[in-house]
C-alpha cells in the first residue's frame, strides 16, 4: 500500500538570493535569468518519491517579498515542518542574513522543524565569496543540513528536497498538531464545500 505524506516547507533568505528560482527549478525544472521579484505564484506543491511505498508532497511557501522589510507574518512559520534557508555563494553578506533568518526560525517556528542551509549560484564559482568550509562549519554548529546548488543549471536542486524528505518523520500521525494538512484535505471546515443537504423542516 503506497502512502503520501504532506509537509509544509518554507523558504527564507535575503532578497535576490534565488529562493523562487530554486523552487521553480525543483517544481517545474525551469529557470528564468531575468525573473522578477516573486509575483503571482507563491504557493507551489511538488512530490518526491521516497521509495516504492512512500511519496512526500511538499507544500512550498515562498516569502512573496514580505521578507524585504522584515514583515513576514507569524502565519508563515506556523506549522512549517521544514525550511530551506538560502544564501548566495557570491555574496558573503547573504550568509549573514541567512544566520539571522535561522535565529528567527528558532524563535518562531516549531522546535522540531528541519532546517536546510543552502548556498545557491554554484554556476558562478569564479565569483565565490563564501567558502564551503565556512558555511558547513556554521551548519554543523547549529545542527542544520547543508548543501550547495545552482537553480540555473539545476545542479544539486533535487538533492536538497530529497535529503529533506529523508529526514522528515513519517511515523507521526498526519493529524497531529504541527503537521501540515494531510493529503491536501483541510482538517477543519471546508468553506468552499457546497452547503450540506437540506435539513428537515425549518430551523427553529
Amino acid at each position, binding site marked *: 500500500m503506497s502512502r503520501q505524506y504532506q509537509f509544509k516547507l518554507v523558504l527564507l533568505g535575503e532578497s535576490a538570493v534565488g529562493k523562487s528560482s530554486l523552487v521553480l527549478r525543483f517544481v517545474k525544472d525551469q529557470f528564468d535569468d531575468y525573473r522578477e521579484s516573486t509575483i503571482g*505564484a507563491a504557493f507551489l506543491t511538488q512530490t518526491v518519491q521516497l521509495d516504492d511505498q512512500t511519496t512526500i508532497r511538499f507544500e512550498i511557501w515562498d516569502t512573496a517579498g514580505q521578507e524585504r522589510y*522584515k*514583515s513576514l507574518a507569524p502565519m508563515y512559520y506556523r506549522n512549517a515542518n521544514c525550511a530551506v534557508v538560502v544564501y548566495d555563494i557570491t555574496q558573503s553578506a547573504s550568509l549573514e542574513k541567512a544566520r539571522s533568518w535561522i535565529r528567527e526560525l528558532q524563535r518562531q517556528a516549531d522546535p522540531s522543524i528541519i532546517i536546510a542551509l543552502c548556498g545557491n549560484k554554484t554556476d558562478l564559482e569564479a565569483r565565490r565569496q563564501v567558502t564551503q568550509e565556512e558555511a558547513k562549519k556554521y551548519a554543523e554548529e547549529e545542527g542544520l543540513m547543508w548543501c550547495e546548488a545552482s537553480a540555473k543549471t539545476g545542479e544539486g536542486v533535487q538533492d536538497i528536497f530529497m535529503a529533506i524528505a529523508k529526514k522528515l518523520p513519517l511515523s507521526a500521525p498526519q493529524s497531529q498538531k504541527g503537521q501540515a494538512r494531510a493529503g491536501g484535505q483541510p482538517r*477543519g471546515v471546508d468553506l468552499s464545500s457546497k452547503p*450540506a443537504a437540506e*435539513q428537515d423542516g425549518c*430551523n427553529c
Partner: protein
Amino acid sequence: MDEEYDVIVLGTGLTECILSGLLSVEGKKVLHMDRNDYYGGDSASLNLTQLYRKFRPDQAPPAELGRDRDYAIDLIPKFIIASGELTKILVHTNVTRYLEFKQIAGSFVYRDGRISKVPSTEMEAVKSPLMGLFEKRRAKQFFEFLQNWKDDDPATHQGRNLDTEPMESIYAYFKLEPGTQDFIGHAMALYLDDDYKKKPARQTYNRIILYTSSMARWGKSPYLYPLYGLGELPQAFARLSAIYGGTYMLDKKVDEIVLDSQGKFVGVRSGDETVKAKQVIGDPSYFGAGATGAGAGKMRVVEEHKVVRAICILKHPIPGTDDSDSAQIIIPQNQVGRRNDIYIAMVSSTHNVCSKDIYVAIVSTIIETDKPELEIRPGLELLGPIHEKFVSISPLFTPTSSGKEDNIFITRSYDATSHFETVVEDVQDVWKRVMGSDLVLKEREIEPTE
C-alpha cells in the same frame, strides 16, 4: 521607498488587508504600512507578551498561564457567519488555503435570568425552553412563512408586504410574544437594539434567512472561527496582496499625511522620507483618531459612540453552555433594561488560541452611561470565576468625508456587532469610493501546479 505607488494603505487591520489584497489582485501597485511590529491593527490577535504590554505594561505575564506562543487573544470579538459575505470573499480570493476553520459550538441567548441554546435543529427547537407549546406553534408558522416566501408568488405572502410593513406588524400578525421577538430580532437577526421593529421587514427577513442558512450549512451554530485566532485573517489577505506585488512594511512610523496646495493627497512621510502615491487608504488611527495636541494632524474622523470590551481568561467553560469549547451568548437589551445588547464571545484551546484548559471570553457592549464596567456586569456574571480580566474602552470612528476631493479614504472602526458583515460592507464602500465602481469578486487565477 523612492518609488511611486498607486495606493498606500495605512494599518493592517482586516478591512485594510482585504482592500490591499483585492487592489493588488486588480493590478494596483500597493504599499502597505503599519506602525506596529505585528499584523492586524485593532483586529489583531496577541500573544501573552503583547497582551500584557498593551494592557499592563508594568507586569509580566504569569508563568502559570502557559507558553506565550500558545496564545492568540483577539482584541475584537467577532465570528464568521457561515453563509455571509466574508466567507464569499475568503473563497473567491482562495486565501482559505492559508487558513483552517472550526465551528463555534453553540449560540446561546439569555432570557429570564438564564441562558438557552438557540435551536439548531427541529429536535432542539421542540425541546427548547425558550418558548411554550402554543408559542412554538406560532413561531413555526412564522418561520414557515419566511422560508416559503417568494417575491414573485403572492400566494406565499399571506397578504403581507415586506418592503412597506414594519417588522413589528409582521410580529403582530403572527401574535409572537415579546420574549420571542427578542430572541428572533437579537439572537437570529442579530440586531443590537430594537430600532429595526419600526423599519420595513425586508432587512430583518434577509438577516433571518442568512442566519438560518448559515446554521443549516454545518449545524451546531451559524459561526466559524479561524484556528490561531482572528488575527490570521488580516495576515492571510496581506499574503494575498504580497503575492500580487504588494509591498509590506511593519514597524514603520507614519509622521505626516502630505498634501498639495489644494489639500489633495500627495504622499506619506515617515521620518525624512516621503513616499508618493495617487491615493491613500487607512484606518481612523492614522487620521487623527484618538490624537490630541499639536502635531496630531488634521482630524478627519468623528466618534460615533464607544464600546466597552472585557477580555476574560477563565479556567472553566461558561456555566450553562453544556461545557461548550466555544460559544456566543447574546443578552438582548430588553432582558436587562438596556438600549443595546451585551455580547459574550468565547473560544478556547480547541481553536489554538490559548493553553489547554483555558477559556477566553470577551464581554462587550455599546456604552450608554459613564460607568461602562457596570454595564457589562450581567455578562460578566454569567462567566463564573474570572481568572484575569482586561477591560478596554474603544471609541468607534467614522470618516468625515468620502475622499473624493482629497484622495484620502478612511475605513471605519470595528463595531459592536458579533460578526464581520459590516466589515465587508465597509470594504465594499471604500472600494467603490477608491475605484469608482462596485466591487465584483472574480475567481482568482488557478496557479500553475494546482
